[in-house]
């Protein structure tokens, strides 16, 4: 029998990176449009009430039960200091996978709306300029233009690490 080669996600990613095209999930926060690597997206859900966690920053809205797993929910709008918006059943939560150290964490982020899945040519990605104080450029991987709209591509790992969610130093 021939050898069976197991295709792990890493392998796939590696394969993708070699590819010229990348897929991003784009969503809006206020007037701005952001994108995350679609492979880091676990699922997209609508908003449901959270259980509040005490003594954490206000953009950490709380935790929800996601099929038995306790998943924190972060309001990106607040995180990016774009003001607060009310939540409704039409509010969208994007569940992301973040890698920290050797662990994968699942975290939900609240966005205004999800726009699309966009294919982006690697080459068309531009490096992020400095936006000033409003949004730290630290977790912006780059900028890309999709049908004339500017989409900021977010680095999920950095984005979620910056939230101080890394419990390693404490535990």
């Amino acid at each position, binding site marked *: *029998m021939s*050898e*069976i080669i*197991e295709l*792990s*996600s890493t392998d796939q990613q590696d394969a993708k990176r070699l590819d010229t095209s990348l897929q991003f999930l784009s969503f809006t926060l206020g007037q701005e449009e952001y994108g995350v690597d679609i492979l880091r997206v676990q699922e997209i859900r609508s908003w449901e*009430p*959270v*259980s*509040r*966690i*005490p*003594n*954490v920053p206000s953009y950490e809205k*709380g*935790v*929800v*039960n996601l099929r*038995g*797993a*306790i*998943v*924190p929910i972060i309001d990106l709008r607040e995180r990016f200091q774009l003001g607060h918006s009310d939540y409704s059943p039409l509010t969208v939560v994007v569940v992301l996978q973040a890698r920290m150290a050797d662990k*994968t*964490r*699942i*975290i939900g982020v609240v966005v205004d709306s999800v726009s699309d899945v966009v294919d982006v040519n690697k080459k068309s990605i531009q490096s992020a300029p400095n936006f000033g104080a409003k949004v730290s450029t630290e977790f912006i991987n780059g900028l890309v233009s999709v049908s004339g709209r500017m989409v900021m591509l977010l680095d999920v790992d950095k984005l979620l690490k910056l939230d*101080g*969610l*890394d*419990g390693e130093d*404490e*535990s």
Partner: protein
Amino acid sequence: MSIDMAQFHQVFFEESFEGLDAMESGLLNLDLGDVNVEDINTIFRAAHSIKGGSGTFGFTAVSDFTHVMETLLDEMRDGRRKITQPAVDVLLGSVDCLRDMLQSIQNGSEVDQSDVAEHKLALDNELNNAVSSSSAGKPSPEALASNSATALPADEAKQIAGWVIAFSPHLHLLKTGNEPVRMFRELASLGHLTTTVDLQGVPDLYDLDPEECHLSWKLSVLGDIPETEVDEIFDWVEDDCDLAKQPIYQTPTEAPPLHSAPDVAINPVANRVTEDVSPELTRAEESESNSLERKSGKKEDAKAAPKGSSSIRVDTSKIDTLINMVGELVITQSMLSLLGEHFELNKLDQLKNGLSQLERHTRELQESVMNIRMLPISFVFSRFPRLAHDISSKLGKKIELKLVGENTEVDKTVVELLSDPLVHLVRNSLDHGIEMPDVRLAAGKPETGTVTLEAYHRGGNIVIEVADDGKGLDKDKLRAKAIEKGLIDADAILSDKQTYELIFMPGFSTAEKLTDISGRGVGMDVVRRNIQALGGNIEILSELGKGSTISIHLPLTLAILDGQSIAVGDETYILPLGSIIESLHVKEDRLNRVAGKGETFLLRGQYLPIIRMHQIFNVLTAKTTKLTEGLIVVVEGQGLRCGLFVDDLLGQQQVVIKSLEANYRRIEGVSGATILGDGSVALILDIPGLVRLANQ
């Protein structure tokens, strides 16, 4: 191929460890005066299995080592060799060595070759000694060292160039789940394989039963292949075929170095396996691996999770129960959905019945699932006979170890975490507790000391007792020592219990001289901490000259908790029921406000600090902020007592503990989270954390 095989390594290791355990207990149980052949057989079978398995997976070092043991045991089984205590000791040592080897392979670390060589030499010596009927003596390390150098080339001299095998399976071979192709593939992994098929036996197409094997082969495999490896491949089909093999000899100079090869081959595989077993593993992959498992036909009744350290062996009956339960659940579900399709109000009772049935089945299912995690405590206990044997022989004490309630079941996590503390306690009893035989005789006690390990259920707890009939604890000595070490004041007044508890204090050891077994003074405090980390506690009872009993109380499981729901504003929190002492309304005259240090209240003469939940958790929706209007729940955790000010008590329920840290982070004052009946998440409170939080 290697990837394929890697799926089964885990199973192999588990089975091998079990086999080793069986060998060890078999050896320990051997009555030298009247050897039961069946006992030897059991040990032999275990060794044989390990040999076969390691051969299959290519762990030649293991199979070689086992082979020697097997030879010795074979002679013992056939009665050609007398079973002597030195021989048993050598075998026990070999079992340990084998275990170390397997563990090293499993962890992907280097096998301690010198140790292996030492034990192998001991075994060979035993074999030779027996033949020459010389008395067995323990070889000195120096002798072992010189021997190992000469022993190895001696083994290598039997270098073989290849094998010619005539393989004629019986018609029903395929029905036993064996597949010749796979076997050939394995052979091919050993060396270059040429196969010639003999089609003579194949019948006419009309008479052909596709499930029967009518073919026979002539196989020739070239390479430095030990006979055992070849045997290993055909091990499972020995009874189902006609097999003849002949070695092809070759000059030894071409042989590559032996030991490093398998290690290199093994390690990456092991690593891959552990890596693969991650949450990212997709379902497709899982199902694939399952189907492979089924195809292999090697699975018996045990279900193996792909995870390395977290696999578990479960009794089939438990699985059957689970399946029954799921069946019931499915029936209930279909009944309910049928009901829901044409629901009318007059079927409300039916609906209620269905729902209560559903609830019952779900609960039973939950219990059954929880039950799967339950393991008999014998997993821990089984190692102690060996321990007792070793220590008694080392110290020259006569000790009998009694095990009671080995089948008492306890959560797997608990079993695992219990192991080390228990070893420590048993060691203490053996080392410090039981006196030397002459001392015992002088004290009017039987020469043989008894250490009893007992486990039983009490309520929702498991109780494990380590009792000895030794000298017991000397309170005065304990006290003097504590004072000497500055642990207590010279004039401190201590009750008996408090005195005994001194031994749990860090840096306390009463052994007059240190031994390599115990007495380093770092044991008991660690033991206690570990037990407490498991949510249990430890007690000591002793009588000078008569012995001591140490009891450990542990919750049956760490995954489920008896919780009390409390309400603070709109939010619900869970308090471990065990930590609650009482709940009360406090009156104004019992309250004290200490400037800058918060509030206290008087409870039976004791001033307890009040922790306002709404304050420390910033709950804005709290019903009341007046202490006299809400409830004070008096709780205790790690020796700390305080009153939690909450709005109300809700219900008591069992909750499944979920980690907050898995996806989030540690939150001070919260030990975990759980999912309530309505699907929402509630936080489980951590009392010491709350106290710390309140003190900030």
